[in-house]
Each structure stands twice: as structure tokens, then as C-alpha cells.
């Protein structure tokens, strides 16, 4: 499968990019995060993040489809 992955805040710094195209055998959001965490050395575990698929919040168990846009969201700090 191919996904477009978006990174923000400390994840963006660790990945060294704001987005990337990822070819992956991972079929759900949690597996994809764990795979990319290993690749980029993210310090935040999935438990501290939220995930969004195609611009809307999603469950970590969400099954992904080809060309989905997946955003990993660190704990927010607006305001």
C-alpha cells in the first residue's frame, strides 16, 4: 500500500520533513505509526498521539486504504 503521511511539531523535526509518501505493508494506523516510529526514532508512543485519516480524526485501529492521507498528531498546545 502507499500512503501520504503528514508530520507535525516534534514529529516533523524528528522525521526531517512535513510529509512523505510511504510504501508499507502496515494495514492500520497503529501499525503504520509503529513502523515509522522505528524508522525515524520518534520518542512519542502512539498512546500520547491522535491520528487523523483524510483530514478527520480516526481510531488507531482504522484500516487504511491505498492513497490515504495519514496525519500523526502530537499532544496539542495551542492557545
Amino acid at each position, binding site marked *: 500500500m502507499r500512503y501520504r503521511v503528514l508530520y*507535525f511539531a516534534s514529529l516533523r523535526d524528528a522525521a526531517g520533513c512535513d510529509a512523505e509518501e510511504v510504501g508499507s505493508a502496515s494495514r492500520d494506523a497503529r501499525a503504520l505509526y509503529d513502523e515509522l516510529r522505528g524508522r525515524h526514532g520518534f520518542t512519542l508512543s502512539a498512546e500520547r498521539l491522535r491520528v487523523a485519516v483524510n483530514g478527520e480524526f480516526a481510531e488507531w485501529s482504522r484500516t487504511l486504504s491505498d492513497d490515504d492521507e495519514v496525519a500523526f498528531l502530537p499532544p496539542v498546545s495551542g492557545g
Partner: protein
Amino acid sequence: MFVLSDRPIDAAALTRALAHAAAGACVTFEGWVRDHNAGRAVRALDYQAYEPLAGREGARVLAEAMQQFAIVDIRCVHRTGALAIGDLAVWVGVSAAHRDAAFAACRYVIDEVKKRVPIWKNEHYADGESGWLHPDNTPVAGGA
């Protein structure tokens, strides 16, 4: 109306836009960039947002406030990009027939925006370091 803006916020114009013949109260909140956090001197900060989802989640917060409180109008603008000490980072404004609902709705919106809307703050410290903040308000190692 929830808006992300990469330009300075015009609070006076936003407040005027809340005016309504049925409104007898107006409450606004301004969040400013301060020069310290968690014991460290701050010289500037950046906000980053996941704009499509931040816009939708912000609009949901305002819709909830309209439903929960007896208010006439409610708006929120949040900055993105680079801000200096003293800059207006977030503005919330509410008009209502009476003050109780206006205060409560304003408080609800700023609290929910800080909790839920995908916006992140990167503080630049006087000692040259920087860090992305998280809900416990401490920077995460690896911020550059």
C-alpha cells in the same frame, strides 16, 4: 466563525462584528505571548497547525458553544506562524443577551480549543534552545 490567521489579529474589528441589537453583553478573551514559561525566558514562538482539521475542529467547538449557551454570536481566531512577545496569539469573542452565558461560552471555547484543536507551539528560549510544547507544558526533547 473559527479562523486560523498568519496575519496579526485585529481584535477591535472582531469585537465590533459581534454587535447585535439583542446582545446586552460582550466577553472577549485575548491570549498573548508572554516572556517566560516553566521558569525559562522566552524570546519568541511559532505556531504550527494542521489547517484543514484545525478549522473543522475549531468550528465544532464554536457550534457546541452556540448550542450549550444562550449566546448571540461567537468567534475565535488563532494565529499561526512566527510571533513576538506581546503579540495576540488567540482571540475569542462572544455576544449574548446576558453576561453569564457570555462568560461561560468564552471560557468553554478557549479551554476546548487548547485541548482539542491541532495547533502546536514551539517556544524559542533566550538561551538559544527551542522546544515544542505538550499538554504538561514541558518541551519535548528533539525540538530544534
